[in-house]
């Protein structure tokens, strides 16, 4: 294997990892604040993908521009879901929380199937298979754009959580729910906010991956699993951790596909996941909650 093959796989792995990171960030915020493992995360992403698809095909809005519409809509969607369903099980047994989100995921994916049939939808933009060439290494144009958008969103979100009052309230809730409540923080509102933000992130990830991937009702499940791995790897509740986790998983997949084989790459990913759980259960950035 030549050096250029390795370099190519490192670069494309990192770019794909950027999108993974965004999915992971959404999940990590939800978990951080509510301690609920959201099994419907990939399905929320799927909703974002359909939204992007219809904005593009019906209104002709470019997927990368439509993020501006998708993000607030998905925020509302998530906030509503939290208010109506998740809120009721916050103090329930963890397995009931998991099952509720599984049920919600089934409802979302199967409603999508009834509404849009199970056909694969492909979003073709003028740049879907364009790339920049850099000394024999090709860099996918849409992936690069989505990577940059991911970076911008991550920085923005980090700023929001660190520097604004609302952000600090969310972090306080994540650290200790009861203490936060005693301090006069409206914990319920913070939960709604964070589920909204988490969903907005998942929806945005859907929008960003749509031009290079495809859309169908069951698309979410594979990404849910990936999001779990990323979140645990980075440390549940840590945004920087999820960002790192996403990029690491993207890299591991890509590099192990060329160095080991593409059929075993997922085993490598899960093995790393288990190792992290055993050696450092709090994840790479476990200490800094959000």
């Amino acid at each position, binding site marked *: 294997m030549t050096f250029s093959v390795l370099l190519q796989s490192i670069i494309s792995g990192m770019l794909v990892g950027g999108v993974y990171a965004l999915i992971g960030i959404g999940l990590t915020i939800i978990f951080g604040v509510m301690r609920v493992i959201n099994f419907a995360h990939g399905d929320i992403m799927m909703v974002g993908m359909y939204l992007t698809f219809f904005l593009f095909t019906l209104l002709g809005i470019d997927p990368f521009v439509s993020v501006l519409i998708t993000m607030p809509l998905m925020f509302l969607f998530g906030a509503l879901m939290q208010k109506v369903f998740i809120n009721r099980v916050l103090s329930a047994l963890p397995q009931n929380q998991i099952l509720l989100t599984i049920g919600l995921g*089934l409802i979302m994916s199967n409603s999508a199937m009834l509404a849009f049939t199970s056909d694969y939808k492909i979003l073709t933009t003028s740049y879907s298979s364009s790339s920049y060439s850099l000394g024999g290494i090709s860099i996918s144009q849409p992936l690069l754009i989505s990577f940059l958008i991911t970076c911008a969103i991550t920085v923005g979100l980090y700023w929001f959580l660190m520097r604004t009052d609302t952000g600090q309230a969310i972090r306080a809730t994540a650290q200790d729910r009861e203490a936060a409540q005693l301090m006069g923080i409206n914990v319920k509102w913070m939960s709604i906010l964070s589920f909204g933000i988490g969903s907005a992130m998942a929806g945005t990830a859907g929008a960003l991956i749509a031009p290079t991937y495809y859309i169908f009702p069951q698309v979410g499940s594979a990404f849910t699993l990936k999001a779990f791995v990323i979140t645990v790897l980075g440390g549940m509740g840590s945004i920087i951790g999820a960002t790192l986790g996403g990029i690491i998983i993207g890299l591991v997949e890509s590099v192990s596909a060329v160095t080991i084989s593409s059929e075993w790459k997922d085993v490598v990913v*899960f093995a790393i996941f288990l190792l992290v759980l055993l050696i450092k259960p709090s994840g790479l950035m476990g200490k800094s909650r959000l």
Partner: protein
Amino acid sequence: MKSIHPLTSIRGASAVQIMFGIVIIAALFAFPQFVESPYALHMMILFFLSTLMGSSWNIIGGYTGQYSVGHAAYFGTGAYTTMILLTTKEIPPWQGMWIGMFAAVIVALIVGSICFRLRGPYFVLASIAVAEIVRITALNLTDLTKGAEGILVTDIPPFKIGELLITDFASKVPYYYIALVLALAIILVTWLVQHSKLGYYFQAIREDQDAAHSLGINLTIWKNTPLVISAVFTSLAGSFYAIFIKFIDPTTVLPLDLSVQIVLISIIGGIGTIWGPVVGSLVLVPLSEALRSNVIAQWLINSGMVDAESGTGVFLKEHLAHAHVLIYGILVVVVILFMPEGVMGYVKKLAAKKKGGEA
């Protein structure tokens, strides 16, 4: 009002209740003598199988509180061991299944050594990861498992003890009895667990691991024991599925979907109870079949409530079948939100309320 302890209520089962149980078991054994329809037998077999899977999970998930979402790994291990031994070494399934159980125990101990260091959501995620590794391994070890092609057998060798032919597996009836016996066995095991020291240890771990530990309960032993029991019976379910369907591949016996489904059976019925998984299967198996085969739409039309040619009729006929997983999802959400202790818990609560009202 006196709080009813599950222990006393079962131990103190009245003669009427015991008689009732015996009658039901007798009826189940007599069932194939009166009903010949292979379709009805098939449904009963799926019901027993579902009970077996749900109850097996219940021992580790319900009684011990370790919510494994990776039980497909044991199911698949049983199924694959039995089928591989049958096709390559011509070892008949009733011998192969023991080896399958043994293999499942090994897998369980490996899973236990990794996952039991973790708690809560981390345990759930680790159990998923291990099951996925098993699935991908089965997919890639093509020399052993035939990978994605799966293993197909045409004939199951006849079951003989000495020269005496027990069955040749030509009809559904032998499968019916095997599944029934397995289901009764797991119910008996669950009963034994609940009424022995084991059950006491398991439930102590479920309520509070640290407290249990400080009471001198060895966590390693008493978390692995229920896992092994659970894995053994889940692997039996897998072996049974394999010879019943005669075809297995990684997407049918090892997917994450299956793990989730196994958990659903108990949760919908009510976890940590003997009858929860039975009730769960009673709800889920007929429901999923009714939705799959579209009998609900057919029934609405036949009963004259909806005209077959009308807009609604056509819509129901075309779409209700497509909606069956959707309805499944709605059911899960409804159960979690309104009957958090499952159907069993809900019924008990209702009964308690009624009693309270009368008094």
